[in-house]
């Protein structure tokens, strides 16, 4: 890039020199924007278009597909005389479970961070090891937990058997527990992430304020709530952002641990999109695109909130 802008400036030196400050940012932005547009922005638009078609993904959408307007959405939500799609509802409910329970990673991460925020020998290694689950790929986390939950022989099952209770079908084989089993697996790395955010945040807490509050008699929970947490606000914000995004992105774990089963009870929207298009018995690309659009719109609510929060911060910084 630098070379081309250089040669560019040689041929049209006068004009370029005069407008250098105005032009340079665009030259620097072009490759990034181009990539981003081709691979992110345009595909989103295409998916919106695709969701208006009945298309099995084979051949060209304009030749082999049929334009059906909002029919796919009618099917999803059961509008205009269509039956609502039960699998879509299951996915939606599971996504809600993910969203709510995944947020537990934030307080859990904070608790572990508080527990580890000490200065004893070897604490650095402890912190690293506690963080370690986050570095492992979700595929491996999924496998690890699948084996952990194995009926009869999984360590989890062995331990629960000591306490005399059994989950019929195993954690992942029972439709009442499977989704929660997967969420717990997801919480493991996510809690580690939140923990590291808070550990870094706690490092930056103003010691004078803490001392001052101590002199005022603040202790324990009160101190945490009124003195520490407000100072951890930026960490909480980021933890919130990444946790929400993580919850809505939950594909890998579902795919690895249960493949949506038993009998489709652990589906989430992201998995359902894949299932309806690229999976073995998919072949409903238009319909899958409609599900993807719904997921996108849900995400958009959160994205808007995040952007708004960041915008306020930007404004304040100026």
């Amino acid at each position, binding site marked *: 890039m630098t070379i081309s802008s250089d040669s560019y400036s040689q041929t049209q030196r006068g004009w370029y020199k005069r407008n250098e400050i105005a032009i340079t940012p665009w030259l620097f932005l072009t490759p990034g924007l181009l990539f981003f547009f081709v691979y992110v922005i345009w595909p989103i638009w295409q998916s919106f278009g695709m969701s208006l078609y009945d298309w099995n993904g084979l051949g060209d959408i304009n030749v082999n597909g049929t334009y059906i307007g909002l029919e796919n959405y009618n099917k999803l939500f059961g509008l205009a005389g269509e039956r609502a799609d039960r699998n879509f509802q299951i996915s939606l409910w599971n996504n809600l479970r993910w969203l709510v329970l995944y947020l537990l990673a934030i307080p859990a991460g904070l608790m572990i961070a508080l527990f580890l*925020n000490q200065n004893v020998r070897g604490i650095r290694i402890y912190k690293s090891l506690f963080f370690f689950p986050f570095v492992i790929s979700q595929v491996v986390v999924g496998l690890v937990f699948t084996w952990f939950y194995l009926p009869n022989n999984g*360590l989890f099952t062995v331990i629960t058997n000591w306490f005399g209770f059994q989950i019929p079908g195993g954690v992942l084989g029972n439709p009442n527990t499977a989704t929660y089993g997967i969420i717990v697996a997801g919480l493991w790395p996510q809690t580690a992430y939140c923990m590291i955010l808070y550990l870094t945040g*706690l490092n930056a807490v103003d010691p004078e304020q803490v001392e001052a509050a101590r002199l005022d008699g603040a202790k324990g929970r009160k101190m945490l709530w009124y003195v520490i947490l407000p100072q951890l606000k930026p960490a909480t914000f980021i933890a919130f952002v990444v946790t929400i995004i993580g919850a809505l992105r939950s594909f890998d774990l579902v795919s690895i641990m249960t493949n949506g089963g038993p009998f489709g009870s652990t589906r989430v929207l992201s998995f359902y999109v894949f299932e309806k298009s690229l999976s073995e018995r998919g072949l409903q690309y238009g319909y899958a695109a409609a599900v993807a659009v719904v997921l996108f719109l849900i995400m958009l609510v959160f994205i808007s909130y995040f952007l708004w929060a960041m915008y306020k911060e930007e404004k304040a910084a100026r």
Partner: protein
Amino acid sequence: MFPTPVQKTSAGVRVSYQAFLPLALILWLLPLIAVMIFSIKPSVDFTTGNYWGWPTSFEGFTNYGRVFFESDMPRYLMNSVLITVPTVIGTVALACMTGFALGVYKFKGNLLIFFMFIAGNFVPFQILMVPVRDLTVDMGLYNTKTGLVLFHIAFQTGFATLFMRNFIRALPFPLIEAARVEGVAEWRIFWYVVLPLMKPAIAAMAVLVFTFIWNDYFWAVVLTQGVESQPVTAGITSFNSQFRAAYHLMSAGSIVAALPPVLMFFLMQKHFIAGLTLGAVK
């Protein structure tokens, strides 16, 4: 410091804290420890139902040896490297430029573009899935590492731009002003003034993107299909079907697959954490 340092508390609290620390760690890593134990067990332990007892023999070398010499695991690992490293380089290059443009210049649409990058980074993968797959197919890059790398670069640029731009924002602006007054060309300012200052950000970015891409599973499944191009996250499912129900080998395979980002983390811990916190929590 909060909570109160244990050094300032009673001896009882101090001792129990020290004792509880390793215990908590073991509990926290229990699922992983289980897999590690599996990976050094002989296969006979699984057929005789001795899942959790003491291993009847230590077969760590045999098991890991088989992972490396009797499966496609080394090829998958190599693919992962060949996908991850170019992506890291590409992303860092692009993001340095976009971050520079958005962080240094004031122009109409600056904030809009910046927010677009952030928003794009949060988009659900599934809405991109079919169009990106079709695009990759049309370019003749389906089932190639290149196809995967190009997409990863594009997508990671969103996140990396956010990070780089904020970092550049925090640099002392007078430095750039001074260069301009001297009549230094803008691209030279980027190359000789800003870039050297960005080294820590580049390191953080590189480690983080490395981990994200290494651990990617979804796009590997969508854009690649065989041992010639699939990274280890996707390859491990074929690996597991090869060694079905052979828990000792599947466990060893998983550990091998997970190891590179773990090493990266332990080697580059400081940068890693700086990246994760988006530089916002200093």
